[in-house]
């Protein structure tokens, strides 16, 4: 088994010791219909309608999609177009809060007696993978039941700098993690082992988890070196099990399914209370944040409200990131909301955000040596210079550009600060567009 390319990053886990604090109820929340991988949800409320906490406001559209619920009680103000931080557009529901946080009277704990009911319940909860990518969790559960699975991986690696949400879940919510794992063991009969994977920069979480699972022979808590991108799905499966997920396939195709540890804790919480996934805990940090915190906020709360709560220096804001510094998406508007999968909000100072001087590629090979997926990012740069669309697509395909997981390692290590990830993303979109046009 060959070692994958990894990099050492500064940890900056300033909030590792901090329990989450609840933000005051915001006056308005905005719920975009596309907050995860899959088809956007379809709004089922009208302007003027009153909703409560947990009232379903949008229905999942097809198989790979997730329902959306109101995180506050109040009135629907607007159902309209919305531009997401990633540049795509979708519909969004704006809800004005009445400040009461009245719970929907229809909320009751779901009845779960078998695997199908568990999938159905999780589908109703609107849960998506909380590690960052946001794949609808119900789909993963279905794979875990229907496919030949021998291992479940509970991902608590949390390898991006700053973020400590999963760390806190494993410490403060250890009980829920254990209950969540029990639910998996009870309803998903296939797996022989459950691996809880944690980077070794979280000693307290490792200790907590090891103690919590001491009596369960099926569960193994594994401490991994703190090397980025340790928690990425494909590399983690390879590191833990030595299994290669072929391009275009899922972990379930090689006998395993991976859940983020905070998602697992939510299983327990949901089966007990029936409250859908409407509140998000996220790490708020960065050089422009005066009091870094782990914050629990209604999904749809504006970045401005959250940054205000954490005493951000608004005069010195350069970049505001959804997620960690390696893969996070830069927000263009402070009034934009947090999403279901927003695990961190980083506010960087102007000085830290300004672009640094670039130099020509000196062919040093650091991007190649550190790519966890075994790719050569400079090959994508060369390929993108080819004028002919078909030849370009061929070059990109033969260089395996679609294997790229956007982890950011190549750009991070590049001494000439070439915009490699940016090029990778453009190249992937370009190739996908060419392939799609060929199909039609």
């Amino acid at each position, binding site marked *: 088994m060959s070692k994958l390319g990894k990099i050492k990053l500064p940890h900056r886990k300033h909030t590792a010791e901090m329990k989450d604090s609840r933000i005051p109820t915001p006056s308005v929340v905005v719920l975009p219909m596309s907050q995860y991988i899959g088809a956007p949800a379809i709004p089922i409320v009208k302007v003027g309608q009153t909703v409560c906490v947990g009232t379903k406001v949008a229905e999942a559209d097809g198989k790979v999609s997730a329902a959306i619920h109101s995180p506050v009680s109040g009135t629907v103000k607007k159902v309209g177009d919305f531009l997401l931080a990633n540049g795509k557009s979708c519909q969004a529901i704006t809800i004005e809060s009445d400040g009461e946080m009245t719970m929907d009277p229809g909320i009751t704990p779901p009845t779960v007696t078998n695997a199908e009911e568990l999938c159905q319940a999780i589908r109703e909860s609107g849960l998506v993978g909380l590690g960052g990518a946001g794949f609808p969790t119900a789909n993963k559960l279905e794979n875990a039941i229907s496919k030949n699975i021998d291992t479940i991986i509970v991902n608590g690696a949390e390898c991006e700098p700053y973020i400590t949400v999963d760390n806190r879940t494993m410490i403060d919510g250890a009980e829920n993690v254990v209950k969540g794992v029990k639910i998996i063991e009870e309803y998903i009969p296939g797996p022989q082992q459950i691996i809880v994977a944690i980077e070794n920069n979280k000693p307290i979480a490792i200790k907590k988890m090891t103690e919590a699972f001491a009596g369960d022979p099926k569960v193994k808590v594994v401490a991994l070196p703190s090397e980025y991108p340790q928690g990425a799905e494909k590399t983690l499966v390879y590191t833990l099990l030595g299994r290669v997920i072929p*391009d275009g396939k899922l972990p379930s195709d090689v006998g395993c399914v991976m859940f983020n540890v905070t998602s697992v804790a939510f299983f327990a919480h949901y089966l007990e209370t029936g409250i859908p996934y409407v509140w998000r805990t996220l790490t708020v940090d960065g050089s422009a944040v005066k009091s870094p915190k782990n914050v629990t906020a209604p999904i749809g709360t504006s970045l401005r409200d959250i940054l205000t709560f954490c005493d951000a220096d608004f005069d010195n804001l350069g970049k505001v990131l959804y997620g960690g510094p390696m893969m996070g998406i830069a927000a263009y508007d402070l009034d934009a909301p947090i999403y279901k999968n927003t695990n961190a909000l980083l506010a960087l100072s102007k000085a830290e955000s300004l672009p640094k001087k670039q130099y020509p590629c000196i062919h040093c090979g650091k991007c190649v040596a550190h790519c966890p997926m*075994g790719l050569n990012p400079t090959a994508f740069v060369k390929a993108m210079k080819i004028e002919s669309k078909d030849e370009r697509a061929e070059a990109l395909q033969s260089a395996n550009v679609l294997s790229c997981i956007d982890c950011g390692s190549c*750009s991070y290590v590049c001494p000439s600060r070439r915009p490699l990830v940016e090029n990778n993303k453009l190249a992937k979109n370009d190739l996908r567009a060419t392939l799609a046009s060929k199909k039609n």
Partner: protein
Amino acid sequence: MNKLIVSSSPHIKTKHDTPRIMLDVIIALLPALIAGVVIYGIRALLVVATCVVSSVVAEFLFNLITKKEQTVFDLSAIITGLILALSLRADAPIWQCVIGSVFAIVVVKCLFGGLGCNFANPAATGRVFLLICFSSTLAGGSLPLITSNPDLVAGATPLPQIAAGAELPSLLDMFLGLRGGSIGESCILALLIGFVYLVARKVINFEVPLIMVATVFVLSLIVGGDVNVALYQVLAGGLVFGAVFMATDYVTTPITRVGKMIFAFGCGLITFLIRMYGNYPEGVSFAILFMNIISPYIEQWTKPRALGKRGNK
């Protein structure tokens, strides 16, 4: 309204930027420079200063005349001048130093598009150019000022001496550089200090110099059958200098680790062939130049294999 800066991830970058790498290479060259001045006298410093200044001025003027962005601050021109100078003898005529530097910078580097675009190592090519044009004044090496062996022949370097079967400096003198040679190539101790520094700073992988030197050693041992002669082959000429500072050049060597290793082996092999069977006593710069030419092909053969294509056992 606050204006936010929007850019692609990642939003943090390493501190080890290109000028820092160049500075590390310059620092790694300093022990060899100091040793050269101590061994061959202050005239060596004049050669070095000439090459460095002409390289930087040549790049500056080229950018000015062709209206390109000024690139002298990336420090790479200093390295070219420094490496070229250290591969010359201490009594090299100044005007020839200027010609060599201008050739290396303008013809080999700038005309191909500047830093990162040249296919051949500027310093190695500059040296080969000078050696062919001015062999009467630049071949061989100048005599050391300090030596444990007063019978050394003026101008003779150990490699032709090996070829002629003449008396050789001791292995220790060879290691310390107390012998005829080029300014920066003789003191192996100083080169090793530079090598360790570059490896420790993660500027270079240790394999490339090691494979190139080991290839020459093993082949010499097999063909010559004498450990002593094989050791002289390693310590003499520009082998260690070329292996540490020319064969590890990023721009002109393959991008993959395996590719770099094949490149290093090829450099060692060609060096050995030229030294053993060619007319030139020294083959390092030629070997590196030839391998530079096939470097893109080595890169083609050693493409990394994507994780998703590796398959399960």
